[in-house]
């Protein structure tokens, strides 16, 4: 395997497209990825307690949805403000499929993804015909309409009562507890990331990037813009629905409450902080925001318990909203390519040390 080790060259010496399309530019990258996966699946689930595992699982679910959003925003250049609601569509689809149609876990979650992709098409169809960022406005409408339906379409969603799901099981093995879910969620994440990375290497992925960079030129080169934008939106919604389905099974009971506009903004924050147009960046963003969320919860708890400002009823919601907004603004102003770019700079500084110019 390592007969002829490939290192980072000090310039761009690619000779053909196969080299350009390689996922790992060096064997070290491949080796480190394998090591990372091994650590993730063998060390992490057994070395960490239930709370840490819970955070890992939330990161995993958020990362799946964030990868989806990044395909739409980072690679196709369309903004969706309804990603949180689409996550809700996925969660409710999985819940309804599991309770009414008694669909098994392994079928309910992917089908929930497909249903969400279809729901996405309904809102993508009108807006994507227009040039410009009409999808943003249409998905904002989608966010409110879906929220309304989740609460008021009581025959299916049981309104504010919520739905309780049966325990997930695959081939007779019950998936209970954080550790079992860890394996399921991270296997899904690995599969989904693999799919996304490879999607970007196909003609479809290149077409999406072309549309982002210059839609007129893309159309001139024979890319049917409308169809590809719709495809991208459907894929993005499908990822959200898939993540939502996992969320529903993991949370056991769901209500419509978490799937609000703030969740959509949270996902926007994730991909901006992580890095637009970078699959790895979406994961960094998911890690950052989830850890930030937990940190803020912990921080507000500590301040509340210290009782320094007893007259101020400090709650987490406004602080969260403010911090997400601030993070979005600061990253756009100072590092628009996000953590992925920071990581690249750090790496290249090490690689080129001591002559890093």
């Amino acid at each position, binding site marked *: 395997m390592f007969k002829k080790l490939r290192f980072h060259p000090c310039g761009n010496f690619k000779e053909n497209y196969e080299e350009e399309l390689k996922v790992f530019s060096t064997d070290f990258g491949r080796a480190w990825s394998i090591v990372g996966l091994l650590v993730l699946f063998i060390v992490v689930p057994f070395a960490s307690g239930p709370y840490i595992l819970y955070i890992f699982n939330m990161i995993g679910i958020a990362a799946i949805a964030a990868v989806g959003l990044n395909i739409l925003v980072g690679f196709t250049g369309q903004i969706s403000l309804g990603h949180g609601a689409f996550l809700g569509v996925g969660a409710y689809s999985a819940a309804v499929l599991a309770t009414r149609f008694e669909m098994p876990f392994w079928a309910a979650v992917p089908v929930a993804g497909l249903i969400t992709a279809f729901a996405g098409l309904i809102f993508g169809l009108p807006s994507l015909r227009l040039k410009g960022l009409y999808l943003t406005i249409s998905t904002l409408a989608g966010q409110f309409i879906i929220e309304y339906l989740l609460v*008021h379409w009581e025959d299916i969603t049981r309104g504010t009562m919520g739905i309780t799901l049966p325990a997930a099981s695959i081939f007779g093995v019950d998936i209970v507890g954080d550790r079992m879910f860890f394996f399921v969620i991270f296997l899904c994440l690995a599969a989904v990331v693999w799919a996304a990375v490879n999607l970007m290497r196909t003609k479809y992925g290149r077409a999406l990037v072309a549309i982002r960079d210059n839609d007129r030129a893309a159309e001139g080169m024979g890319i049917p813009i409308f169809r590809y934008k719709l495809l991208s939106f459907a894929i993005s919604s499908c990822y959200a629905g898939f993540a939502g389905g996992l969320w529903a099974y993991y949370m056991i009971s769901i209500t419509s409450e978490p799937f609000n506009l703030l969740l959509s903004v949270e996902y926007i924050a994730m991909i901006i902080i992580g890095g637009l147009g970078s699959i790895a960046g979406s994961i960094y963003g998911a890690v950052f925001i989830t850890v930030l969320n937990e940190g803020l919860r912990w921080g507000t708890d500590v301040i509340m318990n210290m009782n320094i400002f007893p007259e101020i009823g400090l709650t987490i919601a406004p602080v969260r909203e403010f911090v997400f907004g601030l993070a979005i603004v600061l990253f756009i*102003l100072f590092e628009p390519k996000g953590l992925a770019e920071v990581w690249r700079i750090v790496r290249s500084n090490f690689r080129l040390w001591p002559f890093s110019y």
Partner: protein
Amino acid sequence: MDFFIQLLVNGICIGLLYGISAMGFVMIFKASSVINFAHGELLAIGAFLFLTIVTWAGLPVYAAFLLTLVGSFALGFIVERLFLRPLIGEPLIEVIMLTVGLASMFKGLMLFIWGGNLYTFPDFLPEEFAIQWGVVHVPPVYLTAMLIGILFLIMFGLFFKYSSQGIFMRSVADNQSAALSLGVHVKRVFALSWGIAALVAAMSGIVLGLINGINVHELSSVGLKVFPVVILGGLDSIGGAVVGGILIGLLETFTGGYLSTSLKDVLPYIVLVVILLVKPYGLFGLVEIERV
């Protein structure tokens, strides 16, 4: 029938307010083609500024009104200067996500300072303002809203038609690089349009606060209701914003009156999706034709 007429009057008044708040939005869009997601927050900040000046500082209403307008103009100016000017020339998608971030930031800040409670202004509008036509009763607030709406429409019309700044703004909206080469100070136009937009937003925030009480969540959701209004009227038409506002206002009050109050808030967004489907550039918007 009486109920119908009452709803009609209420709808037109609320709609005019939506129209006015949409005007500010359209102004920013026309000048810099930025879709401003923080418009509702500007609206709420205006209302809270007024509340604070009136109740805590205890200034007379007229002085407070003027101070609020000046303050929110300055706020719009500062927002443009600090956050949007560094992004001139960057992809539009980043600018729009910046306004999403700003919205979230402002909302969190307001919730932090004023909390999620419902406040009410002291009652300062004289009762003589109320109109009684037979059974139809127009409360003073609605009449004020109507007057302010019409006043601002006329003022904007005159501003864009005759003042040099208005003409600069129109030129930038029409063709930015041509305006730049003819000596228009495009950056100043951007700053001015943000300032005016914040001012107009603050004013509609105050009047909306008079009608429904002031609450951070309520007022910032009105800012999002601007989207159905402008899509209906056409994203780049100020007159369209007013017409769209009245239509959405009527639609909302009639659904609230005859169907259900929960449907009232979501119906404008359904209309938005339908309009995008059948008449994507709105009633009065400019149809962009582009051939490859």
